[in-house]
């Protein structure tokens, strides 16, 4: 993430959370936090507990974020960059805030012709390949909950097809009740992921197992002479397993239900 990207990312985040940006020159910005944001970011539970207990006027803080390294020392504020604890704290807040969604395509019909909207389930998934090394991959799956069609880059498709989405059902539109339950949709995606993984290139896992076997062999030889293997042998053995054993971890970043018109996701 470049410093410029971080700058606009923060601006977007704070504006969306109703904080007033009091000053912004592209190099640093001063944000007046709301009470909610202060509680989430400033880590001062005692202050808030106290204010609420005595019913005093709350005074949420103002922060200046510096995104241009050249401003350091010239401007009073917090330098923020990729890797700075503050940015990761904000990422964590966002991940909680942006986890679950339900949206409608903004297509209104007329009193005589209501627009039908079809339910899609979207899961944005992180697949992690873990041994003593690690690699991740993101995939955005979408299942049409009427006919079972699956799309592999659902999130990007929403943008390439320029679909206008709104939080409330538009006028003169109606939604179909899913024929496939969301639970089944999720199951189908899980199955799909398992099938994908089965046909993946497993060199990384085989290599990890080789490294594991090498160390395990040395360990066995080290304790060979001892009649009864000491506890330490088992500790080391378990540690090798924790270190090398290849595994795949699948987690859902966010997702939800999108009601879209029938042909909206045909690529243009």
């Amino acid at each position, binding site marked *: 993430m470049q410093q410029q990207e971080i700058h606009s*990312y923060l601006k977007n*985040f704070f504006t*969306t959370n109703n904080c007033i940006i009091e000053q912004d020159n592209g190099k640093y910005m001063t944000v007046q936090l709301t009470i909610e944001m202060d509680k989430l970011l400033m880590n001062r539970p005692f202050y808030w507990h106290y204010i609420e207990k005595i019913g005093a006027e709350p005074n949420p803080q103002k922060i200046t974020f510096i995104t241009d390294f050249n401003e350091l020392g010239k401007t009073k504020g917090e*330098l923020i*960059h*990729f*890797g*700075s*604890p503050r940015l990761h704290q904000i*990422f964590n807040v*966002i*991940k909680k*805030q*942006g*986890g*679950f*969604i*339900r*949206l409608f395509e903004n297509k209104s019909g007329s009193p005589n012709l209501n627009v039908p909207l079809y339910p899609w389930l979207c899961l*944005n998934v*992180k697949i*992690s*390949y873990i041994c*003593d*090394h*690690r*690699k*991740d991959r*993101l995939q955005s799956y979408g299942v049409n909950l009427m006919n079972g069609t699956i799309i592999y880059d659902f999130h990007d498709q929403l943008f390439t097809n320029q679909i206008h*989405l709104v*939080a409330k059902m538009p006028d003169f539109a109606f939604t179909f009740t899913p024929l496939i339950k*969301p*639970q089944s949709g999720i199951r189908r995606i*899980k199955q799909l992921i398992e099938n994908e*993984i089965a046909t993946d290139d497993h060199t*990384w*896992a085989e290599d990890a197992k080789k490294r594991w076997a090498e160390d395990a062999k*040395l*360990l*066995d*030889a*080290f304790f060979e*002479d001892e009649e009864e293997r000491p506890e330490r042998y088992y*500790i*080391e053995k*378990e*540690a090798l397993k*924790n*270190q090398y*054993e*290849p*595994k*795949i*971890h*699948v987690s*859902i*970043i*966010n997702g*939800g*239900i999108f009601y879209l018109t029938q042909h909206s996701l045909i690529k243009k």
Partner: protein
Amino acid sequence: MELNIHFDDSWIETFLHKLEQDGPWSNWNLYNLALEAEKNLIIPDFHGLQAPKFLPELKPLPHQIETAQRVIENMNGKAILADEVGLGKTIEAGLILKEYMIRGLVKKVLILVPASLVSQWVWELNSKFHIPAIGYRKNYSWEHTDVMVTSIDTAKRSPHKETILELDYDFVIIDEAHKLKNHKTRNYEFAQNLKKKFCLLLTATPIQNRIEEIFNLVSLLKPGHLGTYKEFLEKYKNKHSVDDKHLKELINKVMIRNRRQDTKIEWTKRKVETILIDLSKEERELYDAITKFKQEHNEILNNAFSILTLQREACSSKEAIFVTLKNMLDKAENPSKNFQQFIQSMMELIQKIQVNSKAEKALELIQSINDKVIIFTEYRATQLYLQWYLKQHGISSVPFRGGFRRGKKDWMKELFQNHAQVFIATEAGGEGINLQFCNHMINFDLPWNPMRLEQRIGRIHRLGQEKDVRIYNFATKNTVEEHILKLLYEKINLFERVIGELDEILTKLEFGKLEDHLIDIFTTSETEGEMKIKMENLTAMIELAESIKEDGNYATAGNSQLS
């Protein structure tokens, strides 16, 4: 291939609940920002380092980056980092730890360092690496702190020991790991029983005396890598260095040793000056009385080592020798008349001494330097005296020693940096504090272990030192000090050497600890002449070892520093 796939279902439960309740739902904007955050946080490749991207302010040196990458990619996260002093082993360890944490492979971390270094590690990890490390304090919970820094002495004590050994650590770092070279110690046993996935051992001197030391270190890290203890001893027992090609290769698979000359960093110069000092008449009388006593009544003290200690102390300050004499008297059960008489006569001579010649010289030097100066002494009594003496002459100083609590050490360093002109340290206090803002050092008395002298100089001659470093070595004329300095340190060019070179030479010597030899020479020699000859022999041995070194590995390197 059968692979273990784990689905995290926590999202699903909340989602289904929200479906039932019809919300509340996220804002579309935040939904996109959350995905964008994750896109930036994913690890795109098994290889390479992510950490530098997270640490734009750190600016690690090329050899540090290279080391981190090698440890992770080729050594599977288990390594001995054995860079020479001052090349930034802490930075390398921090980079490696950070990388594993970013990759989500490490969460629970235990960092064992000498007590004097705890706060420094905590500070560096937090400020340079944004790693929320915490120094252990009473009532902190081992279970609930993810990154804990503590001393091995604290960790191995009950009840901590039992708790720690139950925990599964993802990563263990042990600083000054040469202290674990002996596999029969409790420290070693403790380190051995830690549950750990990844592990780093940091030491500037992986082998100090015996080849088994490297076996013990490697076996902590990777049991079996060098075979069993028995096999190893059979093969290498009679060797004192790692000349064996096969053994060298094996060790290089788990150890990285960067040397100064390999790093392409421009080091500031090191200028060493010997200052010989005449004892005053009264000081001389005291010193000679001890020497004479040694020749006549050695049996009274039944420990020749004590005499040597007294001689060395007499070269430092009357305060130092006074404290020792008093302790000897207090401790003796039914002191013999001879013994009491000896102490009595010594005390009388001490009382006659009016000036400390070395301290006078130090004062003169400090005044002419007119800048920050570090004084090292072996004796606490000398330290206290010097502080008082300098104060009499309007010079502010801070004392520093090993027994200080962490907070106090940081505070003392701060005081020196911002307020005082002189920093007076004893040996134990010297370990691991970094004072590169100062470039003058007086060795008020010299340690007999050259490694310790390196450690002292390493406090100021390290990365970050911008000026040439000036070292002033004090030695009193015609005393044991002068012998050490002239015959040993100067003859083997100790001071002009590149840091870390000497330890390599010393390990080549087939006779064990240098310090033991010195003590032996000074305590058993009957005459001055005999002592000189023995010293000559010792330095000749060192020179021999050095020539072996030059003919061997480094013949092509063109060692201008060695000439």
